[in-house]
């Protein structure tokens, strides 16, 4: 046991385990494990026929980590930075990956990006729809209640926060717009009533 030299015994012997578990021990020898040791020189370069790859054309100034000595020869071109979010992202890439500012700015840009696209979507024939895009109707078709009730699920404690994350900002924005509009209307009404007051 723990307080003496020998390890607590295992309930099943290797033979019993081999009987019960198909394939037990086939990779017992570390030489049969593909990632042991970690660093193994790959003589065939996995099919590559270059020492350094040809460079992909850079069609727009590609943002990159300042920890890279150069733009990598191949890169993704999906969703180039655009709008306010794009400006924040480009600024974030001035910081190294070691700085929290880099990642926090990128996360902030993600939220701004979402807002920009949501607003833009209202100018299109397919505006964002929180009902269809959250897939929440699956609650009705895929046992939303049965999957939760009576289960030992610890995630139920925080799942109630999910609608707040999805809809909270919209509700807050709607509230702000309503409250702003009401203030403006009141101010205008106040100015209007002042206009009828006699001046002394």
């Amino acid at each position, binding site marked *: 046991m723990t307080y003496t030299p020998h390890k*607590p015994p295992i309930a099943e012997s290797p033979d019993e385990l081999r009987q019960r578990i198909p394939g037990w021990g086939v990779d017992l020898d570390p030489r049969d494990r593909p990632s042991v040791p970690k660093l193994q020189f790959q003589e065939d370069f996995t099919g590559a*026929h270059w020492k350094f*790859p040809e460079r992909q054309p850079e069609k727009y100034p*590609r943002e990159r980590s300042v920890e890279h000595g150069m733009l990598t020869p*191949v890169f993704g071109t999906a969703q180039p930075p655009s709008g306010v979010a794009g400006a924040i992202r480009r600024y974030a890439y001035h910081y190294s990956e070691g700085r929290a500012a880099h990642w926090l700015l990128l996360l902030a840009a993600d939220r701004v990006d979402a807002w920009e696209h949501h607003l833009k979507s209202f100018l299109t024939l397919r505006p964002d729809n929180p009902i269809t895009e959250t897939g929440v109707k699956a609650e009705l078709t895929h046992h939303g209640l049965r999957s939760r009730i009576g289960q*030992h699920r610890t995630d139920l404690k925080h799942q109630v926060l999910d609608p707040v994350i*999805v809809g909270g900002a919209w509700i807050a924005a709607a509230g702000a717009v309503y409250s702003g509009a009401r203030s403006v209307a009141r101010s205008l009404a106040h100015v209007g009533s002042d206009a009828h007051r006699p001046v002394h």
Partner: protein
Amino acid sequence: MRAMVYRGPYKVRMEEKDRPGIEHPNDAIVRVQLAAICGSDLHLYHGMMPDTRIGHTFGHEFIGVVDEVGSSVQNLAVGDRVMVPFNIFCGTCWYCARGLYSNCHNVNPNATAVGGIYGYSHTTGGYDGGQAEYVRVPFADVGPSRIPDWMADEDAVLLTDATATGYFGAQLGDIVEGDVVIVFGAGPVGLVAAKSAWLMGAGRVIVIDHLDYRLEKARTFAQAETYNFTEYNDIVLEMKKTTDWLGADVAIDAVGAEADGNFLQHVTSSKLKLQGGSPVALNWAIDSVRKGATISVMGAYGPLFSAVKFGDAMNKGLTIHTNQCPVKRQWPRLFEHVRNGYLKPSELVTHRVPLEDIAEGYHIFSAKLDGIIKPLVVPTAA
């Protein structure tokens, strides 16, 4: 073409997008036949991964048919059926030359701390992914492999990440004969890690989760002992009791950034994005093993800091092994295991989601409805 696109946290939809084109002489365009949603896609879906842009197409697990090749492609031809590792890699940088394909330095300009991954934000290179009808596959001579005739499509698609990662995670544990191995997380990766621990000679394999239906799968798929941590006041203490107060020899964190079990940790990471991930499983792993033990971490975390109990790790003299899985390096041995019936990845598949129902698919997976373990995505053009 039709593709899944991200519209903001918890929101996705199918959209028409331009078919990707050849951008580099060694690119291929693959027409996707089958894709999967990975547990790590949920980190993107929940808005946790920095630089996840609106319009991004997720999906790093997919198989398909080569539809077009660039001028320098020699090893593939149009019409070949291929499985594509989730890693994008060049084959010849310092890391690739040593087999660390997941750490390739030539494919991700956005970050040096992580390699290139399909459909996994700009932090991993800004490549659209495979939950679409077509996908651009860089370094076509290096990454993809033709699918063997004997291999089922569902096995092939699961070998592009979940199965390879689980198998790799067990290797990171440096398991020796008779070891007691605890696997945190009974998702597809954890289930494969548990099964793989046996292949490496473990004497006892314990799987911990809070979803009973997944623990049931751990018993049938991986022949493991199971513990639902919600049934115990302190799962770490329970692990000490069951190992005669020594602790396990190896622990595997197959949960990653959205671990449950500690409300504060989960909310500050998954909901408020103040941590790179909720290290509940990792902290339990650190505390559940014996001194001098090994911890394997292939659960995915974001790049921000996380509240890890590093003092305990240091004082216990633990060895912590980590990495994203270099998938293609696992394939020759994994193919043998699948062919011999030691690993049956397709048994993990529970749902097939048409691309037009992608929002429902993500919701079901995120909310853990309907006994979901592994959802596949079926693009209509296939």
